[in-house]
């Protein structure tokens, strides 16, 4: 989706403003919001990429005006309602009006340690990797209206395969309910001038983690 979330290379957002001695959370609700989102993911309400797609689905003006955990709160509310896990009427009322748990699962304290460790997204390859380290590839010029992890700034540009990271769950598939559809994952490194033109910092190199379906072979380099 060519959304506001795909920010790489945009102008106009100003300086980075680091905060000295920043607390982990700036308000109590931020911690509750983080934990609720993680909890729902941990009991299988949605996958990590479905969750990202939920953030990307926020209207751009809401996305830009909301704090980080504010976006998480809106995503949680939207997805809980969209998936029928709770009703909009219940969230408006601030209490459950029906005692149903459609997942029939509950996140308990004993489950917490496993939620603190990331899961594995590597899967057994069903075929050989198409590209080799050192090979030139072109990122495809694609504009799917659904979730993708190929950033706009890389599309159409030529980079070099630097590493093969194994075969991983394919975000573009799982985010639309089309299964894990595992694909080879590569680190592809681009020269700054290839991405940004002659005015690029000459010393800049940028890499993305690119799934095989994002890439075409470049024969003539």
């Amino acid at each position, binding site marked *: 989706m060519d959304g506001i979330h795909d920010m790489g*290379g945009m102008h106009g*957002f100003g300086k980075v403003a680091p905060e000295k001695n920043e607390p982990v959370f700036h308000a109590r609700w931020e911690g509750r919001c983080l934990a609720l989102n993680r909890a729902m993911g941990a009991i299988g309400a949605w996958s990590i990429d479905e969750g990202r797609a939920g953030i990307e689905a926020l209207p751009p003006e809401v996305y830009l005006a909301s704090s980080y955990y504010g976006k998480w709160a809106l995503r949680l509310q939207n997805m809980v309602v969209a998936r029928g896990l709770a009703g909009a009427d219940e969230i408006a009322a601030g209490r459950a009006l029906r005692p149903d748990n459609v997942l029939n699962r509950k996140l308990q*304290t004993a489950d917490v340690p496993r939620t603190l460790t*990331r899961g594995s997204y590597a899967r057994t390859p069903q075929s050989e990797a198409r590209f080799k380290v050192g090979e030139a590839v072109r990122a495809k010029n694609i504009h799917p209206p659904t979730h993708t992890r190929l950033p706009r700034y890389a599309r159409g540009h030529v980079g070099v395969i630097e590493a093969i990271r194994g075969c991983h769950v394919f975000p573009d598939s799982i985010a639309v309910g089309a299964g894990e559809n595992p694909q080879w994952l590569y*680190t592809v490194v681009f020269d700054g001038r290839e991405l940004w033109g002659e005015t690029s910092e000459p010393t800049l190199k940028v890499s993305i983690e690119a799934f095989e379906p994002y890439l075409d072979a470049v024969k003539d380099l």
Partner: protein
Amino acid sequence: MAGHHDDAEQDASELSEMQLRVRALETVLTEKGYVDPAALDAMIEAYETKIGPHIGAAIVAKAWNDPEFKRALLADATKAVQSLGLISRVGDHLIATENTPAVHNMIVCTLCSCYPWEVLGLPPVWYKSAPYRSRAVNDARGVLADFGLSLPPDVQIRVWDSTAETRFIVLPMRPGGTEGWSDERLAALVTRDCMIGTGLPNSPQEMA
């Protein structure tokens, strides 16, 4: 209400929209039996007290003192960090990338906020902000300047955009004047930002 730090003690009228929204979500999801609030407490406590950049700092210090560990870390950071026993089990797909006099590494997630939580804790606000996410990939030296960092003009700036489930940690260069230092002493020089690539480790003089 002066003197009250727990928002549960405040009047509803004083709660912000987000506080109210999140409270409603927690109540509904708890009453429907999806979550136990005690489990949420435990998660929050872990991120506030147990999981943070001190874990990454211990990894970096160990790599500075132990060439064998450094080799293992750069070859397979997931496996190498696992062997330290600092955390119950590190998540998969951790990649360590080494700064050298010729190359400075910097980590970003332009699409969302991907960050190596298990070794650095939760990301700071600036890491998730539009200025960092937009500029890291095309104005890396400008971003470093925002952090007060200026690198020699011939140093290559290598930016890693975390666009998949691989996660990155920068292995900074060991500061001079630290020969013979213990892992613990070295770890005190390792800042969060130097493991993201927007800073350098503290120098021994700064610590004196």
